[in-house]
């Protein structure tokens, strides 16, 4: 170790700042950008224009994208509905199914660690007179199939359970849920934003009826997403939530975002071809990061099941260190924290709390989201930096000192404020 105080030389493969927040969004793959560019300029036609070549050209590009997306999830092109992103897809799925199947029942089942786009939509449904069951998760972040079985009643029309969680990367038992819903004749929607393109998704093998996906989580553009809507066995109907020109089989009006859609298609195509190799690489880097942190630090906690897990995700709590102060110390690395201080609501992560973790553990959590463009050199840099800053902050932490002295922090009478 050099003791000379000078600008440290960065190892090869490391350029600061390092982006390791790929669950929030991903950079656009240059290959995707290349596919999109002509559709901003020369190929600007409206895909709904039926009587000239500009329209035909746009429609052809959109049809190709539909094929590319469908292929990635085992669907057919006609089952893909374009939207502005996964928030819209989730809204359309839940509200559209609720409205369409209202006479059959009014009960919806979801679970507590869903994204807000699902949870808040479900809350809206409750205001509209629907009943919603929010299933709990176990300490690993997984729902229990028995809970789901018990929750189903004769008024249940929809089960909506996310494929993989955006904070803790935990992958739910989607095939089992799909099988159960199929047997019971209940529609199954999954918010698969974090899973599509990262791990195998097959709507038929998994009995998924409706699925939300997004462009910008898979190295595609922002502002474009899709909803898979099953056409046979059963044929799912969705009431449009926006009135207009009747685009997308009447389910989603509005002129198609052709460049965005071309980008989403290209991103899906790349993911389909490279997913296996990429997942292996990401998992190896994630495990390396985990191992380095675990071997250099005490009082750490891995959040969520590591067995049922996205390859690029690591959510770890550095107990006795507050998340925001940790982020401040590693400000050349872009990651997220479950700390209240980093959220607009000043509440710690509801996902981590749902696992049964105390607020103090949630406050100490960091989400690492590894992606396509991260390198092993970056992983090593991040691990060293995190270890360094955590150690520094623990020198400052009265809680770490007390824990080291063997004081049970749960027995201390804190003066909450």
């Amino acid at each position: 170790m050099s003791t000379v105080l000078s600008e440290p030389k960065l190892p090869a493969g490391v350029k600061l700042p390092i982006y390791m927040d790929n669950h929030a969004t991903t950079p656009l793959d240059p290959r995707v950008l290349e596919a999109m560019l002509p559709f901003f300029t020369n190929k600007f036609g409206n895909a709904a224009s039926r009587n000239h070549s500009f329209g035909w050209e746009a429609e052809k590009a959109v049809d190709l994208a539909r094929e590319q997306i469908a292929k990635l999830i085992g669907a057919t092109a006609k089952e893909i509905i374009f939207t502005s992103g996964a928030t819209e897809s989730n809204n359309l799925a839940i509200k559209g199914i609720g409205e369409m199947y209202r006479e059959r029942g009014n009960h919806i089942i979801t679970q507590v660690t869903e994204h807000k786009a699902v949870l808040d939509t479900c809350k809206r449904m409750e205001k509209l007179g629907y009943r919603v069951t929010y299933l709990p998760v176990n300490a690993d972040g997984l729902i229990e199939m028995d809970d789901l079985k018990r929750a189903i009643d004769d008024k249940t029309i929809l089960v909506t359970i996310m494929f993989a969680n955006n904070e803790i990367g935990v992958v739910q038992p989607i095939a089992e849920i799909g099988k159960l819903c199929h047997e019971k004749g209940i529609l199954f929607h999954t918010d698969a934003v974090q899973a599509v393109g990262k791990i195998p998704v097959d709507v038929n093998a998994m009995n998924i009826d409706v699925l939300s996906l997004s462009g910008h989580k898979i190295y595609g553009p922002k502002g474009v997403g899709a909803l898979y809507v099953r056409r046979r066995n059963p044929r799912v109907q969705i009431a449009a939530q926006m009135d207009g020109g009747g685009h997308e089989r009447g389910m989603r009006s509005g002129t198609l975002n052709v460049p965005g859609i071309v980008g989403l298609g290209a991103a899906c195509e790349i993911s389909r071809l490279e997913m296996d190799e990429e997942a292996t690489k990401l998992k190896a880097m994630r495990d390396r990061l985990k191992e380095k942190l675990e071997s250099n630090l005490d009082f750490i906690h891995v959040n969520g099941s590591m067995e049922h897990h996205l390859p690029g995700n690591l959510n770890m709590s550095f107990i006795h260190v507050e998340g925001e102060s940790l982020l401040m110390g590693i400000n050349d690395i872009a990651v997220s924290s479950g700390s209240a201080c980093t959220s607009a609501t000043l509440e710690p992560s509801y996902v981590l709390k749902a696992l049964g973790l105390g607020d103090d553990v949630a406050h100490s959590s960091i989400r690492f989201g590894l992606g396509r463009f991260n390198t092993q050199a970056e992983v090593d840099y991040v691990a060293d930096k995190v270890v360094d800053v955590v150690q520094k902050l623990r020198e400052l932490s009265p809680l770490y000192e007390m824990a080291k002295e063997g004081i049970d922090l749960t027995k201390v009478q804190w003066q909450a404020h």
Partner: protein
Amino acid sequence: MAYSDKVIEHYNNPRNVGQMDKNSSEVGTGLVGAPECGDVMRLQIKVNPDTRVIEDAKFKTFGCGSAIASSSLATEWVKGKTVDEALEIKNTDIVKELALPPVKIHCSVLAEDAIRAAIGDWKKKNTADNQAAAVPVAVAAN
């Protein structure tokens, strides 16, 4: 969140980190906040029994950068003051000095509470009838 230069400076070079013997009669200890709230401050003062001047101060803080900076600044400010002068330090002074944004005002409140709690603890130890221990602790804004 963008931090002020002063917050960053205190975060990078915290003053007076450490601990003193909490059983010493010259030392007053204030432990405020709670882990589930995301911040805990421990501020200690060492008071000269004759002059009532705070001769040394130490802190440790679990919390965000603003909480660390607020407590670091508090130790700087109390040093050299008498306990009565130290009680004059207001959270708003800390807000002003560190340019804390509205969402971080509670960090300054906690630092003021820590000063009061430390002084209260010292007074408790050094008052025969223990009556003077009642130093009012500001009600923290939630």
